[in-house]
């Protein structure tokens, strides 16, 4: 049996998005910047896709800047904030401790350019507090960037409330909504968002395409210079097939959002209950304020990479925040940020669902995970010490 539970990493493209892209590559290969008829026809397709995507997010079409994906959009958003800050003499940016590295590494770069960075606590439940944000904002603050939903533990942030605080205090509000767009009813106006990043491959669209929403009136920083595409803010011939694929996928995701959310959340809860019945297992992130498709747990006494490889042998595609899978020596910064000790964070497992999963997938996964966890605990000296009472369990 093959079970794909790594949808937060990427999703399978929908047939409709693939067909739309292939049709576009066949018929609309001309450059939208060209003046001939074929070019103008491509330009019309581009505009229609831009308008549709904007509308689905509550934005205007000239507030959407297509990018190569979420990371580029995050970089451009923070550089936009930094350029404004440098001009008006405000050099403080607030973010959170469990942002994606596209945000954290860009903030490191800005730090070297003289910006002061405050990373808000995300607490054990994985939720940023609006009152703590309010306290962190100073006269010097130019921008706040808080992700809409966390990519590892799936916790959904009180974005509307955080945006309201920012607007009350007169600072820009950016959100990395890569995990939220297509999953949650995101609306840039009612959510008080000034800048928003998203990426198509997280909602069954193609890879290599995303966008940055920037509210009208905010001067956008040009990260990639060259031609006049994207109103001069992002050079490079538009990737029209990918943009068309993204539009098709986003529209489908928004149309079936509530139906999918209900179905996926039911499977998620079944999966969480099943995994928590394995002794000494803990759920990471708030149980209810999380993405419909996110499950993230830690098992005491074992290591995540071994778990992943054994699950892979059983046909299950999953992910882990263990150091061994991250390629660094430290386990996931997200799990450390919610207060999990290193030894517990190493034993994490992330399973992320989509509407394509079935109850059969979930039941098979629970029994496979139970078997693999037992097998790894059997050979673990840490587990032996815990069982023999030489050490106390961290997870009860």
């Amino acid at each position, binding site marked *: 049996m093959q079970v794909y539970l790594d949808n937060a990493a990427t999703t399978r493209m929908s047939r409709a998005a693939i067909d739309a892209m292939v049709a576009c590559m066949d018929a609309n290969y001309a450059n939208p910047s060209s003046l001939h008829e074929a070019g103008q026809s491509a330009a019309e397709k581009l505009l229609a896709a831009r308008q549709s995507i904007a509308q689905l997010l509550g934005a205007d079409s000239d507030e959407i800047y297509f990018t190569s994906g979420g990371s580029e959009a995050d970089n451009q958003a923070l550089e936009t904030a930094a350029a404004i800050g440098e001009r008006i003499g405000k050099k403080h940016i607030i973010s959170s401790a469990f942002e994606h590295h596209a945000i954290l590494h860009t903030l490191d770069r800005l730090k070297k350019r003289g910006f002061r960075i405050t990373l808000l606590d995300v607490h054990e439940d994985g939720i940023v507090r609006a009152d703590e944000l309010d306290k962190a904002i100073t006269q010097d603050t130019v921008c706040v960037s808080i992700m809409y939903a966390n990519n590892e533990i799936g916790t959904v942030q009180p974005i509307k409330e955080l945006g309201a605080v920012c607007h009350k205090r007169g600072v820009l509000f950016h959100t990395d909504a890569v995990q939220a767009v297509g999953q949650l009813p995101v609306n840039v106006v009612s959510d008080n968002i000034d800048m928003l990043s998203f990426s198509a491959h997280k909602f069954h669209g193609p890879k290599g395409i995303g966008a940055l929403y920037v509210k009208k009136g905010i001067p956008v920083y040009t990260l990639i210079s060259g031609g006049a595409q994207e109103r001069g803010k992002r050079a490079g011939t538009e990737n029209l097939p990918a943009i068309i694929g993204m539009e098709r996928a986003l529209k489908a995701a928004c149309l079936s959002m509530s139906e999918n959310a209900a179905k996926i959340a039911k499977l998620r809860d079944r999966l969480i209950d099943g995994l928590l019945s394995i002794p000494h297992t803990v759920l990471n992130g708030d149980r209810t304020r999380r993405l419909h498709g996110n499950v993230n747990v830690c098992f005491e*006494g*074992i*290591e995540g*990479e*071994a778990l992943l*490889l*054994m699950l892979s*042998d059983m046909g299950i595609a999953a992910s882990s925040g*263990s*150091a*061994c899978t991250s*390629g660094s*020596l430290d*386990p996931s910064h997200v799990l450390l940020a919610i207060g999990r*000790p*290193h*030894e517990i964070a*190493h034993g994490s497992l992330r399973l992320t669902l989509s509407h394509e999963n079935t109850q059969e997938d979930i039941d098979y996964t629970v029994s496979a995970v139970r078997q693999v966890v037992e097998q790894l605990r*059997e*050979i*673990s*000296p*840490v*587990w*032996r010490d815990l069982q023999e009472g030489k050490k106390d369990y961290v997870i009860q």
Partner: protein
Amino acid sequence: MLYSEKVMEHFRNPRNVGKIEDADGVGEVGNAKCGDIMKIYLKIEGDVIVDVKFNTFGCASAIASSSMATEMIKGKPLSDALALTNKAVAEALDGLPAHKLHCSVLAQQAVRAAIKDYYDRNGVACDKAQLSVIDCEDGHCE
């Protein structure tokens, strides 16, 4: 594929897993904070390792390295076990990715720690330098 077939084979079917209740020497290296701990148990008769078992908390390469190291020293004289290098363990596994080489170092150290424990218990004088075990804290982890 990240790992060689040999690593995956030892990971899937680790040899000599378990604990020897009346072990003559026990060595434990690494720590959970770093993500790997290896514990090796030796049964020694005369000068020969007649049995060896291990427990490992860690990734696939840590489990495979412990499995391979125990195979390489089982039935061998202590002098052979002391001469076991991390390089030999990694080579026997058809290589490890660069960032996983510390797993083979850990295996070598676990073997030496167990032999040192045996010597200490029996009051055997030994070359401390050869048996010095680098703690994870000042080893690969930091």
